[in-house]
C-alpha cells in the first residue's frame, strides 16, 4: 500500500477562503487561489477545496477554473454543490481531479451511480460529517438542515458498494478547533465500508495525527485551519512524523 497522505483543506464560503469552526463560525482568510497555490508549493499530498455554501447553486465552476489555471502539480479535490452527473462532468472538465460528495448522498443517492459512470469511481469521495449523539451512537450530520441521526441506510449502501473510492470522515464536533480528531469515528465506520478513509476535523499538530496513522484503513489525514498559522506548515508536520507511514516531504522548487 502507498504511504499515507497529508492533505490540505481550503474551506470556501461566500467566495472567500475561511477558517471554519464546526461549520457554524468563520473567520476570513483570503483568496482560495492563494491558499491553494501555497499548499501546492509546500508539497501537500493533495488539496481539498470545499465550497460550503453552494446549496442548490451547483459547483463553483469559476473557482475550479481559476484553481485549474494555477498549473498545480498537486491533485485537486473539489466539493460543494455537486448534485448531478452534469455537475460532476463540468467540475472535472473545469480542473478538479476528484470530487467530494456530501448532500447528494442523502438527497439523491441514485445520482451517485450516474456520476461514477460519468467521471469514474476513482474520482468520487463521500463526505460523512459524523458526531456522537446524546444516545452515545455515531450520528451523521446533514449540514444544510442541521438534522442528525444514525447513518442512513442509503448512505451505508453507497459506501459499501462500488461507486465511490474513498470516504472523507469529518469529525463535526471537533472541526476547526484544533483539539484532535476522534479516532473512534474511524472505528465506527469499519463496520460499514472497506473503502480507504480520510480523517478531517480538529487536526492541527503532529501528536494528534500520529495515532490515526496506525489505523489500517486510513489513507490520509486532512488538515485545514492549522495550515494557515505558520510558514511551511506541511513540512513541519511531516518533519515531526518521519517515523510514520506518511509520504515523504516533497517541496516544490519554486522561486
Amino acid at each position, binding site marked *: 500500500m502507498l504511504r499515507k497522505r497529508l492533505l490540505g483543506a481550503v474551506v470556501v*464560503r*461566500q*467566495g*472567500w477562503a*475561511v*477558517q471554519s469552526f464546526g461549520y457554524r*463560525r*468563520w*473567520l*476570513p*482568510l*483570503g*483568496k482560495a*487561489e*492563494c*491558499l491553494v*497555490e*501555497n499548499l501546492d*508549493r*509546500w508539497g501537500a499530498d493533495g488539496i481539498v477545496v470545499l465550497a460550503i455554501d453552494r446549496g442548490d*447553486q451547483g459547483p*463553483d465552476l*469559476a*473557482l475550479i477554473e481559476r484553481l485549474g489555471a494555477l498549473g498545480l502539480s498537486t491533485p485537486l479535490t473539489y466539493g460543494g454543490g455537486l448534485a448531478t452527473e452534469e455537475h460532476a462532468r463540468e467540475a472535472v472538465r473545469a480542473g478538479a481531479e476528484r470530487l467530494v460528495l456530501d448532500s447528494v448522498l442523502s438527497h439523491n443517492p441514485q445520482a451517485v451511480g450516474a456520476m461514477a459512470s460519468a467521471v469514474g469511481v476513482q474520482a468520487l469521495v463521500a463526505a460523512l460529517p459524523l458526531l456522537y449523539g446524546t444516545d452515545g451512537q455515531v450520528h451523521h450530520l446533514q449540514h444544510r438542515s442541521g438534522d442528525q441521526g444514525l447513518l442512513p441506510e442509503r448512505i451505508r449502501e453507497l459506501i459499501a458498494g462500488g461507486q465511490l473510492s474513498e470516504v472523507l470522515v469529518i469529525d463535526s464536533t471537533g472541526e476547526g478547533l484544533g483539539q484532535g480528531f476522534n479516532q473512534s469515528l474511524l472505528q465506527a465506520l469499519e463496520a460499514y465500508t472497506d473503502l480507504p478513509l480520510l480523517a478531517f476535523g480538529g487536526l492541527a499538530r503532529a501528536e494528534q495525527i500520529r495515532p490515526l496513522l496506525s489505523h489500517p484503513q486510513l489513507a490520509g489525514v486532512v488538515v485545514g*485551519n492549522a495550515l*494557515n*498559522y*505558520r*510558514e*511551511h506548515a506541511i*513540512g513541519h508536520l511531516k518533519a515531526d512524523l518521519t517515523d510514520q507511514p506518511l509520504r515523504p516531504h516533497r*517541496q*516544490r*522548487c*519554486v*522561486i
Partner: protein
Amino acid sequence: MNTPPVQTCKRCLYNTNHPLGLVLDADGICSGCRIHEEKDTLDWADRWQRLEQLVKPYRSRDSRNYDCIVPVSGAGDSFFIVHLVKERLGLKPLLVTYNRYYNTPLGIRNLAQLRRRFDCDILTQSVNPLSVKKIIRTTLRELGSFHWPVLAGQSVFPVQTAVSHRIPLIIWGAHQGLEQVGMFSHLQEVEMTRRYRKDHDLMGYEADDLLSFFDYLTEADLWQYRYPDEAALERVGVRGIYLGNFVRWDPWAQHQQMVKQAGYASARMNRTFDIYDHVDDWHYMDTHDIIKYHKHGYGRVVDQASREIRHGRISRQDAVSLVSAYQGNRPRHQSMLFTWLGLEKSGLDFLISQLPCHSIQAVVASSGFADAPPRHFFVPEPVAKLDMNISERQVIVGKGYPDNFISKTA
C-alpha cells in the same frame, strides 16, 4: 456566483466589502470586533510568558551576533516594538528599514531617534528609484496601487536579511489581518507567511507575477522584491512572529507612551484625526488614501476610527462624525507626487474614474457618513509638524538630525 449583499458591522464601521474579507455573525457583529473581544479576556501576563519561552532558543550566545530582526519605519508601531524587544525581552535586534521614497523629515527624524534612543544597528534598503518608478507606473495602471513597491519592499527586505545574515527570528508588531478583520484568534499565534504577503499585502501579485503584464518591466526592475526561495527559508529556519499575539495591542495608547518615554514625534495630517500613524510618509495619508477611498469605499480614517470604537474610547456615532470630518479632505502633497513620478493630474483622475468606488457621493451616502454632525473627540496636541521644508530633503540617514528638529517645527 451570486454576490452576497454588503452588510455593515453594528459595532464598528467596516462592511463586508473589506479587502481583507470580513464575516458578520448572527448578531451582526464582525469577525474583527469578535476577535478584538479577546483582548479583554486573555491572560496577557501568561501570553507574555509564552513569548519569553518562544524567543528563548533564539538568544545568541555570542554578543557579536544579533538575536532577531525587527522591521521598522519612522512611524507605525516601530518605537513600541523595539521597546518590547530590547527593553522587555532583552534581545539584541538588528533593525531593518525599507526606503519608501516618500519620507517626511519627521519620519527621518523619528527613525534616527529610534536607533539612538534604543541603541540599535540598522540596515536600510534603497532600491534604485528608476525601477521603483517604473513599477509604480505599472501597478498603478494594472492594480490601482501606488504602494506595491512599498508593501513588497517592507515585507520582503526583513526576510531577505534574515536569510543573508542567518538570523532566523523576525519580530513584527501586530498582524493587520487579525487586528482589522479578525482573521485569526490571538491564541492561534499566527506567524508571517509568504501566502499572506501575496494574498493581502501584494493584492495577489508577487514580483514575478508583474512580469506577466504586457509592458516594459523587466526582471532587473523586480528582483529586489523577490521572496527568498523555500529551500533558503527552511535552511535558515526563518520564522516571523507577531508581538500582537502576546501583548494587548493598542496603538493609540502605545504611541502616547512612546511620545513620553522614547521621544516619538507626532504630527497632524489632513485626512485623519490620528496624529501618530504614518507621519513618516507624505504620500500614505495623502494621494494613497484617496486611491484607497475610491478603490474600497473608505479611507484610512475608517480603520483608525473602527480601532478606537473597539478600544472603547469613542462611540460609533463619534466615529462616524470623525470619518465625515476627515474623509473628504483634499490631498496636500499631490504636486510632489506628480513631479516625482512624471504623472499628470488628468492621468490620475482617469485612473480614479476606473476604480470600483469612484463615485464619492455614492460611497459617502451608502456608508452613512454623510451629514454626520461634528462631535468632540480629544486629540492631544502633536509634537511636531509634517514639515516639507525643501532644505531638509538632503537629509537621508538622519545623522544628528533629531536634536533641533522638533523645536524648529512645532
